[in-house]
């Protein structure tokens, strides 16, 4: 039975990581921009949960909605205020801008809230465990899996069947051509940022759910996960991001069990070594795409 518990745990981690990676790759696919400020969107969601929970009596579910919407708004604003202005310039300038935005958001949280960790109230359901067919697991794991899969299904529907989704996919394949066919660039890019923010908001609920506290630097962990997962899966495709997230979640869970403690300390270093090796040996990742387009300004 321990094996099953381990598997459920691994799937839970994997589906959360898939979601994290997807939020990053939606932007990367279109702009070829690695958004270093992505982790801070998760931080924003976390702080909104804390603020609403600590100051009001609003039920958690509504607080969660506020957190997700807040992350979407902040994501949109970062694009509007900073990235849009630098987009036409060099990729290096764009990457440094995302790093600067990340620092800006982190330190704003330091000023506005506190450098110390803040406890976030969680609903009862996060700390209960259930037993099905003799397998005991936490409700949080089940919730993570259910919500992540629901999100993935919803996004798949969005990408397949809506005009916005088709425009987004087209832009990810060939942005220049998409523009020429009359799709407004700013609208597509802004929607991508809003979507990325929505995913970050949902991720924040579960990421905060693991530790029940939020700090200004909480975004670094998910950001690094997103890096590794997208590189494993293939940075150019949305499916690749999901595959990469699951694979990373599985590898991470297995490494945790298999490696001796001495090497476990270096787990992060190992993961990033894998990143470097993949970028060198198989830069397109596990999932290949039909179109491979250079960045357009």
């Amino acid at each position: 039975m321990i094996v099953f518990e381990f598997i459920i745990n691994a799937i839970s981690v994997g589906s959360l990581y898939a979601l994290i990676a997807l939020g990053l790759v939606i932007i990367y696919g279109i702009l070829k921009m690695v958004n270093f400020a992505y982790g801070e969107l998760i931080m924003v969601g976390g702080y909104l949960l804390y603020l609403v929970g600590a100051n009001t009596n609003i039920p958690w579910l509504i607080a969660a909605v506020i957190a997700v919407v807040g992350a979407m708004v902040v994501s949109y604003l970062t694009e509007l205020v900073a990235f849009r202005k630098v987009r036409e310039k060099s990729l290096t300038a764009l990457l440094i801008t995302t790093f600067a935005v990340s620092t800006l958001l982190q330190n704003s949280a330091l000023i506005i809230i506190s450098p110390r960790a803040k406890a976030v109230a969680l609903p009862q359901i996060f700390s209960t465990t259930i037993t099905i067919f003799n397998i005991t697991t936490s409700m949080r794991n089940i919730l993570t899996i259910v919500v992540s899969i629901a999100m993935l299904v919803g996004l798949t529907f969005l990408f397949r069947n809506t005009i916005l989704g088709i425009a987004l996919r087209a832009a990810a394949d060939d942005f220049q051509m998409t523009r020429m066919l009359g799709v407004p660039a700013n609208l597509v890019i802004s929607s991508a940022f809003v979507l990325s923010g929505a995913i970050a908001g949902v991720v924040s609920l579960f990421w905060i759910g693991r530790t029940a506290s939020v700090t200004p630097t909480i975004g670094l962990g998910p950001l690094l996960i997103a890096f590794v997962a997208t590189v494993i899966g293939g940075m150019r495709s949305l499916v690749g991001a999901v595959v990469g997230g699951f694979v990373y979640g599985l590898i991470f869970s297995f490494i945790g069990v298999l490696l001796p403690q001495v090497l476990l300390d270096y787990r992060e270093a190992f993961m990033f070594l894998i990143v470097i090796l993949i970028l060198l040996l198989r830069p397109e990742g596990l999932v290949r795409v039909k179109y491979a387009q250079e960045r357009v300004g």
Partner: protein
Amino acid sequence: MKRARLIAWLSRYSTIVILAVPILLVAAFTELIAGTLLIRLVTAMFVSMIIVLGMQVFMGNSGILAWAHVGFMGIGAYVAALCSMTPHIKEIAIPQVYPFLLNLQLPFWLSLLVGSAIAALVAAVISYPLMRLSDAAAAITSFALLIIIHAVLVHWDRVTNGPRTLFGIEEYTTLWISVSGAILMLILAYFFKESSLGLRLRASREDYHAASAMGINITQVRYLSFVVSAAIAGFGGGLFAHYITSFTPDAFYLIETFNVLAMLVVGGPLGISGAVIGTILVTVAREGVRAVENTINLNHLLPFEVIGLTEVFLATVLILSLILRPQGIMGSRELRWKPKQSSGEANELDAQPASE
């Protein structure tokens, strides 16, 4: 004739002179009138300048975003500190230190060189394949490199004392040592940029395909410059260690990377002048805001403690600078002095065409 020769020499190396003389003046002025606090600030500024110059050598000339240099700074800092500490202090500061490291003690200047050499060696061993990559892939790999170096520094207890503070390092880095170091590295970075290697690297930055069609081995050129820039960063790290005297691996991570990037990008990564001017401007601005922050906190002007104002300010400046002047204040220009072309002799001696 002697005068003409002097003029020719001055105009050839005018960038170095124009940058070095004010630096020396600032240092002399600080030494004469300033108190201990300001002397320490200026010392720190010149140490930062070395790191920024190290980053410029690679990032400015190759056009590739470099995240890992603060990691090499960290390697230089730890190695230099290990070399210069006395065995007695080392035993207390790093309880689990390897026996062969315990009895190692070198003079300060040699420690700096060893630190620099080890940083260059690490770069030389790991970086060759990475130099094939450009754009986002290059940015992610060098970011990954920074994280790997940081992870190793945090976990290698027997060398770095792990995540705990490494203390007990002698304060050897005086104002004049850091100034001399900065000027030395400035000259090195300048000659690197103007060398044939630097020229080939800059060609690859401007147009990858044209440069490679002209027979430039871009991977190799990038590789050599990466090693040189890691050596400079390692040297700066050694000076940093003997300035700050106690530090943790977190001193060489994202916050410091942000600082260094801000300095280089605000000034202009394409030239030496940009790196120098950016370091000075950003340091002055940062210390100004920090003073405001401290005043607010010490006098309780606001009902809460303000932490992070400096970084918010710096990040805003950096974003604005990228929007308004993405190539920095200096762009691709260098500060230069050219004599009026009135006397024929000076012309003759100065026949070498300006490279920019």
